[in-house]
């Protein structure tokens, strides 16, 4: 049985609407045809990025593998008219190790003891809890 699965993440390109937003079209036209961008690159939207990824997964337990990624960048001039469009493909991506260090944060974390005390429940709830979680050994 075919267990491999294909997943389309991020923006879903559809060819007809792409044609409606050529160079020279206005910001509203782009928004109308392509929809809200995945992310924008300027405070007032100097550049729209539409990011799309495709992943496959050979079997249900595997991690989905990134097999395709393309990003459409639409650059606007001062008056909000598309002056240039660029495409980034998967091969443009750089491969490197991300920094593993993280900035420390605070806040109480539950200790095992707390979980037991909290989890046990007292009185009738505790008794019922212990009864309806019964399962045969082995």
């Amino acid at each position: 049985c075919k267990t491999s699965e294909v997943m389309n993440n991020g923006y879903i390109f559809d060819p007809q609407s792409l044609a409606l937003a050529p160079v020279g079209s206005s910001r509203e036209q782009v928004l109308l045809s392509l929809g809200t961008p995945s992310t924008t690159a300027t405070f007032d939207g100097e550049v729209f990025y539409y990011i799309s990824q495709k992943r496959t997964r050979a079997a249900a337990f595997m991690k989905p593998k990134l097999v395709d990624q393309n990003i459409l960048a639409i650059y606007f001039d001062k008056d909000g008219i598309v002056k240039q469009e660029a495409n980034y493909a998967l091969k443009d991506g750089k491969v490197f190790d991300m920094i593993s260090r993280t900035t420390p944060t605070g806040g109480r974390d539950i200790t095992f003891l707390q979980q037991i005390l909290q989890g046990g429940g007292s009185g009738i709830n505790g008794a019922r809890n212990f009864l309806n979680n019964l399962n045969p050994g082995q």
Partner: protein
Amino acid sequence: CNTKKDIDITKLGVDTDPPELLYNQGLANIKAGNMAEAGKKFDAINQQQPFSEWARKAMVMSTFVKFRTGRYDDAVQTGNSYLRQYPASEDADYVQYLVGSSYAKQIVDITQDQRAAQQTIEAMSKLVTNYPKSQYVSDAQEKIRFARDQLAGKEMQVGRYYLERKDYLAAISRFRIVVEKYPTTNQIEEALARLVEAYYAMGIVPEAQTAAAVLGHNYPDSRWYSDSFQLLKKGGVEPSENSGSWISRAGKKLLLGT
């Protein structure tokens, strides 16, 4: 199970000691460290003459006792009912501070719901706006800063979750929230550095350069900046600010420090 004996309400007299005596007994108990007993004394005053000046002071102390004994929800409840009855009294700022601190004590690790951090910010902001001259304002601001660090930390945690899975779009949106909504928190450096990583991994080098440049401007000696610098240098690129990009706009805002 336990057969609780019925209480004969006719004998439940009013605590006949004068409120002043009860109040001092309460204070003595606090000094002796016997919080539960102190709490009872203050509640007795409140029962006896609910609107007297002593009752008001007793309510303040009762909130304090509940806070000290870790009964944070009760402290918040008593504190808030005090603030509803005596919004303009001279202890109101202290009670508001106690309410805010009760929430602050319940702030949990960033992998869990940060509702308590949100509530801390709301309560402490009320203190700062309603009682600007109060002595607790500085500590309130410190607690607000810590709570905002927590909220920013949560966005970073989710952002890193997606970055690990190469979900650059989801990661960038999360890091972006930290840069735009929490620029003054301790997470800002890492947020910018993660943006460099995300844009660079997608191959959108100009954005990565700008993010690194803004990070460099604001935190030149930060380890995160040196990491980003190394990363770009390995790829033969320098952090350079293309002023049009949103990050540089955000960066300028950082410089001005809103």
